[in-house]
């Protein structure tokens, strides 16, 4: 498992082993940090709020069936947990190496920058997955309380949420590599995911009336869609009277599962690779 190094008494480990080392210590840093604690509180707050609201008001949308429960609870909230976790743990994972000068401690060692990048990505993924795990446990706990069974679609939805986390983290690492300022990379990623993508989705569907297949949050809709039975097709509705007496036609687009996975996968592949290239080329000035 080692690359022979004739010029040192130590054998420099393989890049995979070095990725493991970086992951381990970056994760340790995350788990002990204030940010992890804050994210934990946010996840707990969302979970408690949903538990109390559903328990007190017993809304039909939640309690109509097993599937509608998971769709309403999980389908509407989990993307928020995913995006927030990715921003918290990935937003400045790379830019912090420059701004906080931690890169000066790790980079001048016999380790490829790509190993540092991948190691930090894995640490951010695990830390975010812990948050997702907590939210999943609360969701399932409530689901079992009301319906005493878990639909298999929830398992699929959980995997899609994990995949969405992968894609969003690819994106956050891209912006983290693009900027040297931690606050800038966090801010841009947060604005994009919390506002811009949602707004674009709405505008494109309403005004341009085309399927927004190029938006990551459109692809992520499969997390909620899979919890609907049957799986929803694109739906065109004609409502009221619009401009010059013409009826207004609105189409609600639903990405199919392969489409959703492809969109998220392509987003991840492009942003992760470009982010890595940026980090490889970026200089510690």
């Amino acid at each position, binding site marked *: 498992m080692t690359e022979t190094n004739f010029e040192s008494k130590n054998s420099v480990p393989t890049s995979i082993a070095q990725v493991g080392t970086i992951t381990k210590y970056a994760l340790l840093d995350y788990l002990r940090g204030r940010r992890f604690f804050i994210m934990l509180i946010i996840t707990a707050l969302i979970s408690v709020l949903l538990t109390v609201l559903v328990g007190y008001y017993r809304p039909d949308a939640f309690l109509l069936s097993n599937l509608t429960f998971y769709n309403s609870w999980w389908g509407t909230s989990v993307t928020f947990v995913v995006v927030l976790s990715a921003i918290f743990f990935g937003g400045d994972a790379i830019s912090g190496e420059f701004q906080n000068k931690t890169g000066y*401690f790790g980079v001048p060692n016999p380790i490829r920058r790509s190993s540092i990048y991948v190691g930090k990505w894995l640490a951010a993924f695990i830390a975010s997955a812990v948050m997702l795990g907590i939210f999943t446990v609360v969701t399932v706990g409530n689901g079992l309380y009301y319906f005493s069974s878990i639909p298999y679609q929830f398992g699929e939805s959980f995997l899609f949420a994990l995949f969405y986390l992968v894609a969003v983290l690819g994106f956050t690492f891209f912006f983290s590599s693009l900027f040297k300022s931690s606050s800038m990379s966090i801010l841009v990623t947060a604005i994009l995911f919390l506002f811009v993508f949602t707004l674009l989705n709405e505008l494109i569907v309403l005004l341009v009336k085309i399927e927004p297949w190029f938006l990551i949050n459109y692809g992520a809709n499969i997390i909620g869609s899979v919890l609907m039975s049957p799986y929803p097709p694109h739906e065109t509705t004609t409502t009221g009277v619009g401009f010059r007496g013409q009826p207004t036609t609105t189409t609600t687009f639903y990405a199919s599962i392969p489409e959703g996975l492809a969109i998220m996968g392509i987003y991840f592949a492009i942003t992760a690779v470009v982010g890595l290239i940026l980090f490889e080329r970026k200089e510690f000035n």
Partner: protein
Amino acid sequence: MPFSDVPSIEAVKLSKRYNSFVAVSELNLKIEGAKCVGFLGPNGAGKTTTLKMFTDLIRASSGEALINGINVHTNKKAALASVAALIETPEIYPSLTPREALTMIAEVRGVPATEIKKRIEEAVLEVHMNEWIDKRVGKFSKGMKQRICIASALLSDPRILLLDEPTNGLDPRGMSEVRDIVKSLRSKKRLIFMSSHLLSEVSDVCDEVAMIDHGKLIVYDTISNVTSKFSGGNNVVEVGLVRPVDSKIVVKTIAAFPGVINAEKIDDKSLKISFNGGLDVQERLLNDIVKLNIGVISYKAASSELEEAYLKLITATL
């Protein structure tokens, strides 16, 4: 893959440009063998930029940075396998303890698992941070972090050390301890390439000196050659006295001490002594003067041969 028993670092036409600004200009410098080389130059001369190009922190615009004949840019892992570097003042992940941060570096560098604990404890002891080994780094002062970073450089017993102003941020005791560490590494047959603003530090610790200005190498030679070529060959100390001193003692006794070239009174209570030699001569001279019981209350270097050479060389390029 090139291989040599002799540690070496080499800059081949190494350049770094930022748009129209040239930070390092076609630097050619080969340092070979176990020795300590001081890297001197004014602010902005290109010292740190050069060291960063040797450690993958920045990329050369042209030319090559070679360590043991291996290009740092194209084969970083192999090139830096036997190198430890301390560039600027690195920060450590704040939630980690020195033990954890150093374990991370030890694992990355391939220190055998069975030796990691022992080596970390030895390295931390050497920088006098053993009491803090299990405290989180986030609360450490700049000097404490610098000590941990020095410990990280010692962990893997590297054959080559690249140090960028290693005493920067340390208190006087810390500075002295770091110099002692560097001296001990030099005695262990390591190649040490160390930038510094402190000429006394370089003349105390190093065998050779490379001077750079405006990104260009001005001179690279042994300290004795540089000083003999470019200075008057004198070190000067100023001595403060608590009471007026007899001129005869100055002219006849002090001027006759071994190594002393000239001794003169600046005023009734201070002397200026020029001498040949390094810190050992300076130390002996102090002992001899104190023994005269003339009321010595201060003793400081006014200038050194290296300083004289530095000023001559650097001024000449302005």
